[in-house]
């Protein structure tokens, strides 16, 4: 276990930046947190959720697949991806870290997505335990412990110090390179922090939310429930929930004609959009209800069916804050699944 005085954090960031690009949550001009590259003077923000989740690092909103040049009847394929060298991310919360696991199951299953894989391999993740979980946090529902955030290096903070505990070889290697900025410490202070966080988690309003009634092979049980009508009634069909969600992974592949070539890129797409499944032969999901149902069934039933019961929600609470009409997965779980406390 290592530690550093909070007021000296900038020294640590500077030392890491010498080794590799470093990204961390920073408050922007709208007072939202977003991950930004550290440069001299960049202040770390303790904000729990960045608006865009940390999935951006591995699955960016748009990314080039390849370019084409055409001449007459001929086509030339040009490799043109912008994959990053090694980089480190500081301040990833336990929920976002779990979301990487959710995405891994999709992108690293055969056939492997090599863009995603390269980014994953090149990253060192510093997590941060959540000292002040918010009312919208429900990571506990999905067995994520905000007091035990894991990652390559797990970090904890109290009033004066940040404690760093390397867990993987990647994490150890990087910390070894910056030891001069760090002091040694025993496990004790972190134990105390963990205990305090765990106590706080228990007092969160959504602590007892349970998704147990959902899971693998429950399609029949939930698909035709009449509550979907009511739940989806006010849905605007925008993509806010999917774009702020750390586990939403649907994408589209599109071509952009630059006037002197074609760029083929993939970009986030949303199952909430009316044209998501539209094809020349027809549209299997004709109403917003079906699109809405798809999103939640995917997170709570389909994904677990294909991934040994693992849910595709990490309880980060972003959709609770960002949905324009405040419809969210907690309301869906409560309405359809029932919970311990209502």
């Amino acid at each position, binding site marked *: 276990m290592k530690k550093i005085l909070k007021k000296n954090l900038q020294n640590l960031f500077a030392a890491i930046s010498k080794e590799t690009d470093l990204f961390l949550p920073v408050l*922007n*001009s*709208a*007072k*939202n947190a*977003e991950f930004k590259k550290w440069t001299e003077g960049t202040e770390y923000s*303790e*904000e729990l959720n960045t*608006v*865009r989740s940390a999935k951006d690092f591995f699955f*960016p*909103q*748009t990314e080039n697949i390849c370019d084409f040049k055409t001449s007459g009847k001929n086509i030339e394929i040009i490799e043109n991806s912008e994959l990053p060298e090694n980089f480190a991310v500081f301040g990833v919360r336990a929920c976002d870290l779990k979301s990487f696991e959710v995405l891994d199951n999709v992108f690293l299953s055969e056939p492997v997505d090599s863009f995603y894989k390269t980014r994953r391999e090149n990253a060192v993740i510093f997590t941060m335990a959540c000292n*002040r*979980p*918010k*009312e*919208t*946090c429900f990571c506990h529902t999905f067995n994520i412990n905000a007091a035990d955030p894991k990652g390559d290096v797990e970090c904890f903070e109290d009033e004066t110090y940040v404690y760093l505990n390397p867990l993987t070889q990647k994490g150890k290697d990087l910390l070894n390179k910056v030891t001069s900025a760090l002091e040694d410490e025993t496990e004790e202070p972190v134990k105390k922090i963990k205990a305090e966080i765990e106590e*706080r988690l228990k*007092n*969160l*309003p*959504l602590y007892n939310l349970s998704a147990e009634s959902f899971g693998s092979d429950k399609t029949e049980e939930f698909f035709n429930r009449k509550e979907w009508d*009511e739940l989806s*009634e*006010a849905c*605007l*069909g*925008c*993509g*806010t929930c*999917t*774009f*702020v969600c750390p586990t939403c992974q649907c994408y*589209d592949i*599109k071509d*952009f004609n630059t006037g002197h070539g074609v760029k083929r*890129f993939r*970009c*986030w*797409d*949303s199952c909430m*959009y*009316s*044209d998501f499944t539209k094809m020349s032969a027809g549209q299997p999901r004709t109403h917003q209800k079906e699109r809405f149902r798809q999103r939640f069934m995917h997170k709570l039933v389909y994904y677990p069916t294909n991934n040994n019961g693992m849910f595709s929600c990490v309880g980060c609470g972003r959709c*609770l804050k*960002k*949905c*324009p*009409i*405040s*419809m*969210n997965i*907690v*309301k869906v779980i409560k309405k359809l699944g029932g919970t311990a406390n209502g």
Partner: protein
Amino acid sequence: MQTVTRNQLVEKAKELLNNGTVTRVLGIKKGEFSYDLTPAVFTSAEELEKEFEFNGFAAANFSKYLVKLADGEGKILVFLKPCDSYSFNQLLTEHRFNRENVYAVGIECDGFADYKKIEEEFNDGIKSVEFNGEKIEVTTLYDGKKELAFADYMLERCKNCKTKKIAAFDELLTENSDETKNTRFEEVEKLEAMTPDERYAFWRNELSRCIRCNACRDVCPACTCEKCVFNNPDSGVENKAIQNSFEENMFHIIRAFHVAGRCTDCGECSRVCPQHIPLHLLNRKFIKDINSFYGEYQAGAEVGNRAPLVNYTKEDIEPKDAVGRGSEE
């Protein structure tokens, strides 16, 4: 703090349901917390009693829902705040729903609170928010109670409320008022006074945050196209590639232009933007320009008004004289 109470609305809704005037009530449902309210349709007194909510966060504009809901069985009851009533008229002007199927009750509005601003005040979870006169009582998870002045935590659009007048209704639940304020162009004027470089930097900073979730478009009561140009593969601009400065500019310029002259300045776009981009500043620039070039015009003030962009006079200002006029005034 709203003068109109939840109970008043529930009583009115129950009365209209019971006497058969309406079969459905468009209202707001309680959520997990005081701020996560969801628009919903109620069909019985029991539902209303149990789940209807109306508090200082009930800011959603109901009018757009009528496009979808006014087609149902029987009349639907809608409560119109002044903002909603302008959108209501504008949608009627564009023949987007059948007026006959709607029963509108006008309610006065004292402004709504901006949850984001309250949240910013604390690096903390918020357990509950109570509205109490001019005060908001916030109970946080870790730092106890705190009192805030409601006036400081209003939505931008409410702070710069354009009017308290309800422009459309079948019945008024409260008094109508003619009170109008003229502060809403101040921000636009500030921008106009900047140099082009400063303005460019300002907008780049704001628009670069856009994640193209389309929430602004999908909530907008003026955006009711069956198929948006940005969803149409034949338009050539369907690209969903954001993180490109041109696409960000184009999306927001074109969207603002499409609603220019029809935008009632209800402020929903800015309210729902997950990245808090001040989109109303684009719409208000158009409104301000229209007012100054072609005479005062408020979209939705009356049903059937001809929008300025489908109108002309022979003496209209020339583009070269119009551009940049704001900054010279």
